[in-house]
């Protein structure tokens, strides 16, 4: 193996490890995607790279670019709604062009814009996992020419790592939200029971009556039950009003106890 190719292999391995690290650690997706774009330029015979991701409605957005020229070309693609990247994203297949000058009819506006920025060769890959295509990777060459099959495979592998990372991070975020909701549900239940206790003690009520008092107050003040409960427990709410209403049965214990002021 020549020194050059050994060096290249090392660089390749390091790049993959660097990207794969993002699958394990807490990381920033955008940071990873920026790194990916610049890695493409180091590892492949290309001069620029760009990454686009789709939003919920299937519209592509430019997320990272290795150079300003690449960024302009990608922005233009999205705006003009034409180009190899869009095609790759929509068909979920790679789109390779040796010389954009031959594709004037295919993408008239895009081809002209790209050449203006100095690019002739182009290779677009979908960011895809099974049936999910979430964006595309664009590789630009100043000189016309196609990527070799070997380089094409490397490019696809880089795209795959990016795709898995993004989907993984989305899944974790979704799950985190569900967990937070579960925690919030438990917190709510707990604080409501605590508030019932506070009212029961202050108003000499049973737990059922306390709960009714809380609910009534929340309804009348258009607040969430758990918020009212939290304020009662934290001492931010004068419970006299709540307890005054519960004294409707005229019992002697209906008088609220003092000392429940918000200054506590």
């Amino acid at each position, binding site marked *: 193996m020549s020194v050059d190719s050994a060096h290249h292999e090392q660089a390749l391995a390091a790049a993959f490890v660097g990207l794969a690290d993002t699958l394990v650690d807490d990381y920033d997706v955008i940071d990873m995607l920026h790194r990916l774009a610049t890695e493409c330029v180091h590892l492949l015979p290309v001069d620029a790279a760009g990454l686009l991701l789709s939003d919920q409605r299937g519209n592509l957005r430019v997320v990272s670019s290795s150079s300003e020229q690449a960024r302009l070309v990608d922005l233009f693609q999205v705006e003009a709604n034409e180009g190899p990247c869009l095609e790759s994203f929509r068909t979920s297949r790679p789109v390779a062009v040796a010389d954009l000058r031959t594709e004037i009819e295919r993408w008239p506006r895009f081809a002209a814009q790209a050449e203006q920025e100095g690019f002739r060769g182009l290779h677009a890959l979908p960011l895809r996992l099974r049936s999910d295509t979430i964006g595309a990777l664009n590789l630009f060459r100043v000189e016309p020419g196609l990527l070799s099959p070997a380089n094409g495979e490397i490019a696809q592998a880089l795209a795959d790592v990016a795709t898995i990372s993004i989907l993984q991070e989305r899944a974790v975020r979704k*799950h985190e939200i*569900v*967990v*937070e909701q579960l*925690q*919030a549900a438990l917190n709510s239940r707990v604080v409501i029971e605590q508030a019932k206790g506070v009212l*029961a003690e202050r108003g000499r009520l049973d737990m059922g009556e306390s709960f009714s008092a809380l609910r009534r107050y929340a309804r009348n003040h258009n607040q969430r039950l758990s918020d009212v409960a939290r304020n009662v427990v934290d*001492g931010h709410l004068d419970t006299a009003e709540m307890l005054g209403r519960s004294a409707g049965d005229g019992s002697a214990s209906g008088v609220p106890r003092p000392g429940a002021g918000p200054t506590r």
Partner: protein
Amino acid sequence: MVDLDRFADQLAEIVAHGGAQAPRSICDACVVALPVSGASITIMASADRQEPLYATDAVAARLDDLQFGLGEGPCVDAFVDQRPVLVPDLAGTSDNRWPMFLHGARETSASAVFVFPLHVGTIAVGVLDLYHVHPGLLDADALAGALLCADALLWTLLGLRSGDEPDGNGWAKETDPHGWLRGAPLARTEVYQAIGMIIAQLDVDAETALARLRARAFATGRPIDQVARDVVERRLRFNEENK
């Protein structure tokens, strides 16, 4: 010997099937497949806000109650630190992390305790408690099995099934998909109500009220649930003299 592959398949099936009974099934399967005597799951929003979900036997339930009642123990640490806490020998340990818990735990038939946090990213939702009547560490396969178990529990608690992909929005829509916390009263309802009453009786905050309740339970050697019931049923009051 743990047949990890078979256990993994079994867990996958339970998760795929889903449903409200899934966490119980996982705990039961755990006790059969792994070298442990019992298991329990507790949902937690914080160290002091716990809701026991299921225990395979009275010892597991007791260990859980002890930790909540005392406010210390491997459960609490595992939840707060989000790391498994393994205590292979309750009697022999010179651990002084949880003196009161160890004291109480040694009075049960448990000799070893292993606690695994249930968490996603940086957010913990509860713990899986395993115990064994004989002392000793879990071997590598048993440990792997316990971690699989914790994973499976997490999926069922979140109401997710294997193969779930993020939906169009990427966000889950349902809170508490199996109603763990809706409907039926919380297992520790009276403790929380008692805390509220003590807040009013002593004019202190919730944390202090819980500390006082725990102190009373410890001093009288009674489970915290019982002391709480006394408070709620007005047989016991906290005031400046007796706090």
